């Protein structure tokens, strides 16, 4: 029997992309690229905002519009991309 590998996550100095949870990644992505800001101004609660922002992002990037943080959406958020916001504010 081999012992299961114990994976250790280290915070590397200078590593700007930290080991974020998917939800943290989503919040950061949706805000950075302009999906969140407009919706937050309208006073919805955070969860509603996130769902709508996710839908908007999924629509914009040609993904299935589930409003959920599904694996395809998380994967898209991890892709290298242009820094210009998708939604102008």
């Amino acid at each position, binding site marked *: 029997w081999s012992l299961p590998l114990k994976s250790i*996550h*280290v915070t590397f100095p200078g590593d700007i992309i930290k080991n974020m949870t998917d939800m943290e990644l989503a919040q950061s992505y949706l805000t950075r690229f302009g999906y969140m800001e407009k919706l937050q101004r309208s006073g919805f609660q955070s969860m509603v905002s996130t769902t709508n922002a996710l839908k908007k992002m999924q629509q914009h*990037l040609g993904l299935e519009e589930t409003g959920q943080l599904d694996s395809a959406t998380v994967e898209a958020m991890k892709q290298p991309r*242009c820094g*210009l916001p*998708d939604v*102008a504010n």
Partner: protein
Amino acid sequence: YKTFEGDLKWDHNDVTYRILNYSPDLDSELTDDAFARAFKVWSDVTPLTFTRLYDGTADIMISFGKGDHGDPYPFDGKDGLLAHAYPPGKGIQGDAHFDDDENWTLGKGPVVKTRYGNAEGALCHFPFTFEGKSYSTCTTDGRADNLPWCSTTADFGRDKKYGFCPSELLYTIGGNADAAPCVFPFTFEGKEYDGCTTEGRNDGYRWCATTNNFDQDKKYGFCPSRDTAVSGGNSEGEPCHFPFTFLGQSYDACTNEGRGDGRLWCATTASYDDDKKWGFCRDKGYSLFLVAAHEFGHALGLDHSNIRQALMYPMYTYVEDFSLHRDDVAGIQYLYGRREGPVPTPPRPTTPFISKTTTTTPKTVDPNAKDICKVNKFDTITVIKKDLYFFSDGYYWKKSGRGNNGELKGPFRVSERWGALPTVIDAAFEDLLTGYLYFFSGSQFWVYTGQSYVGPRNIEKLGLPASVKVVQGALQRGKYKVLLFSGEEYWRMDVKTQKVDEKGYPRYTQNTFGGVPSQPNDAFQFNGHTYFYWDRFYWRLTSTKLVDRVGYVKYDLLPC
């Protein structure tokens, strides 16, 4: 496609750009070429022209930077954000910024352009073998001076072709030392340094002094990245240190241990545990050409598209044979219209990768010894017996005249077919009436029929004035007349009398052939079109003398 609010666009079609600095990852010539090609993506389909400025303020100022690089939108280290650009306008508007924590390549892994050696600046060939060992990176093996080198063919033992790889021991980038190499050790603020350092800077770029005392001489330059260097992390540009210790374990290769994202990394000192110095191992990198083409789309007024295959889609995907998606074409043409007629200013050339040299000619021509795709500028291009001939430095290639996909043969040695000719041929044409071949080199010309020839004779014999020192191009007009080009003018020669017509000539090339370069390198007739050739580009004219296409000789007329 989408445009910015208010359809922001340039109010002039002659857009200028300026490259403010270079990434240490990619040779400056490759960078210049990638940007020029990225602009051409757009100028191919719109009436825009792009002219490079070397100082002053250009419409599009291009720079590389890391993290917080002076605008309100900091980059985020390696991967994630690659670049951004601002829509057209004054000041920062129109500018394009590239994240220098990325590994900039042409999209398929390290591209290492050599210097010095005997390969005339060719790219490294990875892997290559040297004394029975295979190398996938530059090496210092076999040298006592610690300079990294590589073979530019697969087998150094067989071909003996090599060049030196980027190294701070060979040259520096930018700074104020005219590319002088680093001097180690050097003194900076009283402390001695044995290698490049980021000390004293807050932008993360590695630098060195080019004399042994920076405090006294103030001479410095930035260090080029070696191909073995890490990117990102906190040791950008430093090589991996193998073995290294991480959490008490020793590692001889890059590892993804300790990371949740599976990316490979290494330490740049013997112990990560002690020094915490690390970076990501080199991967395929991002194509500077593709990212630049996308960013220049923004700089011209296009916002992100939601069509995944479009260039203006926000995510990066590498594509080998890039062509602009119809959505991008529709977007840019919505702003600027379609390109019709000639491009008034040709793209500014970058320094050729291969410089012309006269070397001892080998007895047999190895096709690999002279690669047509590495010839940036041909001595002349002409049509003989309906085949297109490309001459360069004592060699020629022949492409059959059947469309653009005709078979390419060569290289052949000029001296084996036309023994009297010199190495450099400035112009050539076939007299359609007699089948005689005329060759021009400097102020001399030769006339060949089969293996017999006449010459060399002085071009004054053709009636050209003594002020004409060279015939740069020759273009057959009908059965009896040939136009001879020199400088900005051309003369008409009657092949029956072998004299230029005195009346009405010379004429200005651009007055007759609007839209072509004022001093073309050559002109020829091929497949029913007239072509003018200048630097690496051609201008194709219809029978009514309208330019209907401008392109690269290499990519359109040759299978490169």
